């Protein structure tokens, strides 16, 4: 069995950033395993602009952003294998993978970095009544048809869910000559980025119907229409508001789920709020020596943060391998009020500079974010907080002499 210091599972932006950083920290015996036929991850199909504003101060397309990292990986001669899918990892860090060239094989790592990204929530989970004809796709699948294969999956479109991919596909399909009749969002707010709502819907006069959902799908062979309705506060459809929209396609953009099947196999503890691993500030999971970053850890809306997180995981894994450092068991828990839906990391194990990423559970106006530990309090004013946009705050070092830190929202 081959042995590696660090094996990185997934060659998207998270995995590449992790590998580059680990290499820069002095690890040469490392390997990226990617199941697709090229590095780049989901960015390969995101041909629109808007990537890299934070990290490179320029607007790049997805493939351009990915290429910057891919070049670096190649420059540094970081070993990677493509067309190889990891099918199992165990707690002792044995990795089982499959490829055409090598068949099913195992390798062993001192440290593993999980960077498998996320997948889209499928229709099944929604239990929409009606028939199940052709013409129902997740937005990412439609994106693959259009951008990677060069085919238009439909011409009269209704989109359910206002996640970013759905918004981006509303614009893409419109530009390709299709008509997007409506984007229905069951919540009273959109989970997508404000900039995407402006640039992908408003600029094209595509109606965003908040507090609306699709209650029935019609059509035998191909979708012929959908019935939509407004929902009440409990998200139950209001019958009087039913409306039939003829269309040939229903796109679903109803959420992304971190791809953690492998993590479960290794016994890694997952968070209900993020569906990703529970991690400390080093992005170390509950299994020592296994780290996680990017969308497999929690769903990001900006790739720049994904890269940052990859760097943290790469640095921590290198540190773990070089210093054979075991985890510091004294932890500082990060507690939240319910309004802050989750934080990453969920706990802190060492007194070091720590940035906390978090999301809120609703739209909030004119609030202050309160950070508290023992008698220390710090507040940050916020005019607007949106569930679709990740927030960050940096914890001052003196806050870390405590058993727990609290983050919450209060009125200004």
């Amino acid at each position, binding site marked *: 069995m081959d042995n590696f210091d660090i094996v990185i599972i997934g060659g998207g932006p998270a995995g590449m950033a992790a590998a580059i950083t680990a290499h820069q920290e002095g690890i040469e015996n490392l390997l990226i395993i990617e199941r697709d036929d*090229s590095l780049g991850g989901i960015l390969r199909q995101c041909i629109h602009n808007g990537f890299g504003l934070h990290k490179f101060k320029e607007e790049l397309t997805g493939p351009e952003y990915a290429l910057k990292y891919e070049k670096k990986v190649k420059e540094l001669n970081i070993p990677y294998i493509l067309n190889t899918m990891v099918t199992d990892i165990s707690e002792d860090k044995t990795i089982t993978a499959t490829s055409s060239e090598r068949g099913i094989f195992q390798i062993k790592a001192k440290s593993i970095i999980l960077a498998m990204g996320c997948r889209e929530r499928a229709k099944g989970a929604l239990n929409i009544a009606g028939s199940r004809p052709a013409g129902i796709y997740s937005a990412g699948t439609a994106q693959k048809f259009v951008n990677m294969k060069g085919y238009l999956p439909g011409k009269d479109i209704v989109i359910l869910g206002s996640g970013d991919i759905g918004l981006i596909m509303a614009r893409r399909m419109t530009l390709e000559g299709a008509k997007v009749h409506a984007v229905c969002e069951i919540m009273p707010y959109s989970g997508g980025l404000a900039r995407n709502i402006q640039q992908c819907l408003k600029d094209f006069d595509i109606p965003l119907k908040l507090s609306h959902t699709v209650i029935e799908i019609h059509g035998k062979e191909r979708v012929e229409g959908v019935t939509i309705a407004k929902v009440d506060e409990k998200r139950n459809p209001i019958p009087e508001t039913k409306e039939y929209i003829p269309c040939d396609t229903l796109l679903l953009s109803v959420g992304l789920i971190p791809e953690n099947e492998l993590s479960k196999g290794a016994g890694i503890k997952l968070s209900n709020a993020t569906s990703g691993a529970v991690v400390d500030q080093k992005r170390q999971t509950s299994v020592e020596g296994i780290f996680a970053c990017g969308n497999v850890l929690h769903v990001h809306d900006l790739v720049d943060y994904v890269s940052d997180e990859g760097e943290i995981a790469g640095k921590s894994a290198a540190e773990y391998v070089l210093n054979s450092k075991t985890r510091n068991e004294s932890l500082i828990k990060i507690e939240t009020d319910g309004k802050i839906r989750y934080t990453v990391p969920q706990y802190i194990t060492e007194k070091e500079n720590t940035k906390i990423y978090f999301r809120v559970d609703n739209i909030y106006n004119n609030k202050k974010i309160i950070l508290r530990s023992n008698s220390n309090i710090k507040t940050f004013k916020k005019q607007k907080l949106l569930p679709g946009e990740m927030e960050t705050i940096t914890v001052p070092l003196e806050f870390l002499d405590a058993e727990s830190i609290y983050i919450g929202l209060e009125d200004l």
Partner: protein
Amino acid sequence: MYDVAIIGAGVVGAMISRTLARYNLKICVIEKSNDVATGATKANSAIVHAGFDAPVGTLKAKLNVKGSKMMEDIARELGVKYKKNGSLVIGFCEEDLNEIKKLYKRGIENGVENLSILGKEEINKLEPNLAENVLYALYAPTGAIICPYELAIAALGNAMDNGVGFIRNFEVKSIKKFDGFFTITNGEKEIKTKYIVNSAGLYADNIAKMVGDNSFEIHPRRGEYILFDKECRGIVKQTIFRTPTKMGKGILLTPTVDENILLGPTSVDISDKENKSTTAEGFFHIISQGRENLPSLPLNKNITSFCGLRAVGDKGDFIINSFENNFINVAGIESPGLSASPAIAEMVKDILIENGLSMTLKENFNPIRKSMSYFADASIEEKNQIIKKDNSFGKIICRCEKITLGEILEAIRTNPKPYDLDGVKRRTRSQMGRCQGGFCSPYIVDILAEELNIPYIEVTKSGKNSVINIKKLKEVNGNG
């Protein structure tokens, strides 16, 4: 000229074709859709019933008990997944217990073996997750589960390997009777045959009327289901029925042979034979009864829902008879039709012989079909042997179910060949996992287009107008 034309490629038609394939006969199976197993056969509870349910003396009872005894061997020959997981009819109160006792008695009269009535403790041992207030159960260790479309595909495939013809996308519109033979037409083409077996499911009454047999009617009864992620495996191990009441049989709960958990069916009479819609009321009913049986049911783990239509006859029993000598009805085959299908096929063969069709056994009939899941079931060493010979078995296409290119190609090249995405799905389980084809379907479209030698744009979900894409936009150097 065919000796026998079987109309309808559901599990019943498929099993009949395989039984008749043992003989020196010229046989075809005629199907209106793009594939085998697209009717009731693809959407049912997938249970091989023990046989305590049907009233004593009915065809349903006899054929169920006989069929379920034959099923295990047939599944082995055809390489179809089958599991004798046992079943429980659970009761919550004294009234239920009385009903359970009746079922017990009926089961014994029907010839079901090893039935017993269990109390709470024994139930707990078998199924620790059932609701606290489940007090009684009828236990039938001979109850089993099978994959119904896999069975139909394999049975027809094996029949084809032994010489049977499969004519699809042929909707029988009229039948003309001549001296000693029929012509069957779809309005364009004609098929000549000496005997007809009418196993057209919901449309068996329409087909019978084409030859002047107006003796029965079939109407559809909707049955909706919700399917749960494999992660729920083990939450129940046997098939769990509720005690039947005046309100019907209620919602059952069962593992499938692929380790998902299936909940359903609802039971609502409808009039449109084409209406396979699920309903909000149906979901509500399934979930609320499901939770009564199994309070820990993880509702967020459901991955899909679907609906099947029972072909309910107006005679209260299966309608298996001959209208004149050479036209045989196999109609009203509602539950337990899947379980009974091997015995139904035998019965049809006997009727044909009785009605003057002479048949001699083929010398070279091969009852064995390679299992569709042989690769998935192989050990790592065996898999590596296979990959060494053909490296497409090392390329995973469906990441949820871990189905490889090799398995998909082999399915596309094996009788009866799939022509569409759903056909590939039913043969390989690709697109059936938690992402429901979101990731792999664009690739499978590629594979189908290449194998069938048709443009990408012409690949469909399930034949006819169920197109996936509507327009070619541009040449992309799409490697993806």
